């Protein structure tokens, strides 16, 4: 697989997350100390103020716009080479829309997406095509995302039609068989159809297709959500192996918070089209400061019956407001147990809260709350 490993000279990515946090409290200092000096280099992707508003129209003959669904409403984050950024949040918070914007499958209403310093929302034609080759996607549903009438070989080789420079015609079959081998499928299977494979195998086919053009970034939208536990582990292990092998950067979208912690170096939490908290996996899971993150984490059932009486549950009341009509000020205030008058008037910005700035504490990460404070909800008291 020589062609695929284009980055052999890569520097070892400093992997903060390998610190094994056995007891979060006793190791807090150690974690913070390891974290501080990390130099991640230049980000490969920089997202700034990204918005996607879907128009809401009324009328049959003459459509007029009566409002907008603010699916993504001012999202900013960076993705570094070789890292995995997890994105979590409840249904409808805008995760897939972010993915589609990054893939150029949707046109942004506002904002910029810089790929190695170049704003790709402004590119078109050849220049756009060249960049798009480097950003690929793996979808959630292994049952519907593969065309049932195409052979596996045609599915994986399809990207070569758009980018023939990667694999000249005569070379395609060999290339596809290599890709099958990389994702752990029998290269002899190239002439089979998707229905002849299990869910986990189909997801491997989707990953092979994502790898076909030697991309640098892969956006994974719920790649294992439809799979059984035992098969999930197989696919996750494969994705981690491929990341090391080809120095890939992942954006990993999922609603399973345990899986996201497992695979991510950093994690962003979304609510109603905005990122409300972002940080390293230890910062988000062991030292969350945003009330929404705390509620989300506290609600996750953990496979430990001993802990069930000792964990604090924050049961949120009410439903997520409509993104067509988000609350004024802090969009979480209608469900937040800490909300005060200020929360309705003033929109909290995503920034390191003043009280934690410069401090040598894991709470020293970005959180969009006027009253950010640390609360461990994951570890039993």
């Amino acid at each position, binding site marked *: 697989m020589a062609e695929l490993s284009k980055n052999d000279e890569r520097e070892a990515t400093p992997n903060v997350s390998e610190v*094994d946090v056995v007891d979060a409290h006793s190791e807090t200092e150690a974690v913070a100390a390891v974290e501080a000096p990390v130099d991640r280099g230049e980000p490969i992707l920089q997202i700034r103020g990204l918005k996607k508003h879907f128009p809401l129209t009324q009328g049959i003959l003459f459509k007029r716009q009566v409002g907008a669904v603010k699916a993504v409403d001012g999202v900013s984050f960076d993705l570094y080479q070789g890292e995995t950024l997890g994105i979590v949040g409840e249904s409808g918070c805008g995760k897939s829309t972010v993915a589609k914007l990054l893939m150029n499958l949707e046109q942004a209403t506002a904002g910029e997406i810089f790929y190695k310093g170049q704003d790709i929302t402004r590119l078109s034609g050849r220049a756009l095509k060249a960049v798009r080759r480097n950003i690929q996607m793996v979808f959630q549903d292994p049952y519907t995302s593969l065309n049932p009438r195409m052979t596996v070989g045609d599915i994986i080789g399809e990207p070569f039609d758009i980018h023939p420079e990667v694999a000249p015609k005569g070379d395609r079959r060999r290339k596809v068989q290599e890709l099958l081998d990389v994702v752990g499928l029998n290269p002899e299977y190239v002439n089979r159809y998707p229905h002849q494979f299990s869910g986990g195998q189909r997801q491997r086919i989707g990953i092979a297709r994502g790898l076909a053009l030697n991309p640098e970034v892969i956006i994974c939208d719920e790649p294992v959500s439809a799979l059984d536990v035992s098969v999930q582990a197989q696919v996750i292990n494969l994705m981690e192996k491929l990341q090391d092998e080809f120095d890939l950067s992942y954006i990993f979208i999922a609603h399973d918070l345990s899986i996201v912690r497992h695979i991510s170096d950093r994690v962003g939490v979304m609510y109603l089209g905005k990122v409300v908290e972002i940080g390293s996996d230890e910062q988000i899971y062991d030292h969350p400061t945003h009330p929404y993150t705390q509620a989300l984490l506290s609600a996750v059932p*953990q496979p430990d019956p001993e802990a069930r009486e000792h964990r604090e549950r924050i049961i949120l009341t009410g439903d997520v407001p409509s993104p067509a009509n988000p609350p004024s000020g802090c969009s979480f205030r209608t469900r937040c147990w800490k909300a005060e008058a200020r929360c309705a008037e003033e929109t909290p910005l995503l920034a390191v809260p003043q009280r934690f700035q410069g401090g040598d504490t894991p709470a020293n990460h970005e959180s969009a709350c006027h009253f950010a404070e640390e609360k461990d909800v994951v570890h039993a008291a």
Partner: protein
Amino acid sequence: MLLDVRDLRVEFRTRDGVAHAVNGVNLSVDAGETLAVLGESGSGKSVTAQAVMGILDSPPGRVTGGEILFKGRDLLGLKEEERRRIRGAEMAMIFQDALSSLNPVLTVGAQLAEMFTVHRGMSRKDARARAVELMDRVRIPAARERVDDYPHQFSGGMRQRIMIAMAMALEPSLIIADEPTTALDVTVQAQVMDLLAELQRELDMGLVLITHDLGVVADVADRIAVMYAGRIVESAPVHDLYKAPAHPYTRGLLASIPRLDQKGRELYAIKGLPPSLTDIPPGCPFNPRCPMVRDTPCRTEVPPLFEVAADRGSACFFWEECLHG
């Protein structure tokens, strides 16, 4: 014992042959107890539940053996009419997908009220009042105003709470919940499980909770039965099973889930895939994937459910080794 399922067997006659979906399942639930039935997709969880409820898709499905004792009576010997009376009044079921199990062209109030007019012979006015009461009880805000709304006008979490209201309406002694929160977000899942547990306590019901989520089991169940290829491979009190599994499949499952409270190392992955139910391997059904397999007896004899302790069973010849290893 409220429900006692003994050696239940169900087959489906399909074009590809006979699918052995349930192959000798034993389960029991007491009043006030929560039994979790855990297993991967296709292991026979829903079919077991459907057989107990008497709503099996037949044909092609057929119960080919066993007993389903409910309050001491074998349901398999009853006439359909009698089973229909028991369904709803004495045992009720909650499904994963509320939207497709509620009637889209009837208001939720009408559907709830129907439980009381049909089963209890109440007047329409009284039944409607009970419907509002029930919606209140499952914490639907502004129940009185929303009783005439249709299912699609409610959020996913509210619809699932309305399903719960419907199941609870006649205060049955047994509820079977088939993946009741799988389609919901975690914060909503927490609300719904909370509600279910509260009503169960209040009414002292038996609850069979079908799930594939080891977190949900640990959170709410008293006992757990693990299914694989249509069999119960391990059954135990929840605390014991998580502390020390007595079947290699259970052990593999526990090792393959990532943790929320710490960054783990590489996940353990059970190799291979579950067997096709038309072609279950001879001997122990788990043998092609088992790290502890031995040619004899694993590939030749089907392991029975061995007694590990008074209230624990494992269908593995080498359960002792698994338990202590």
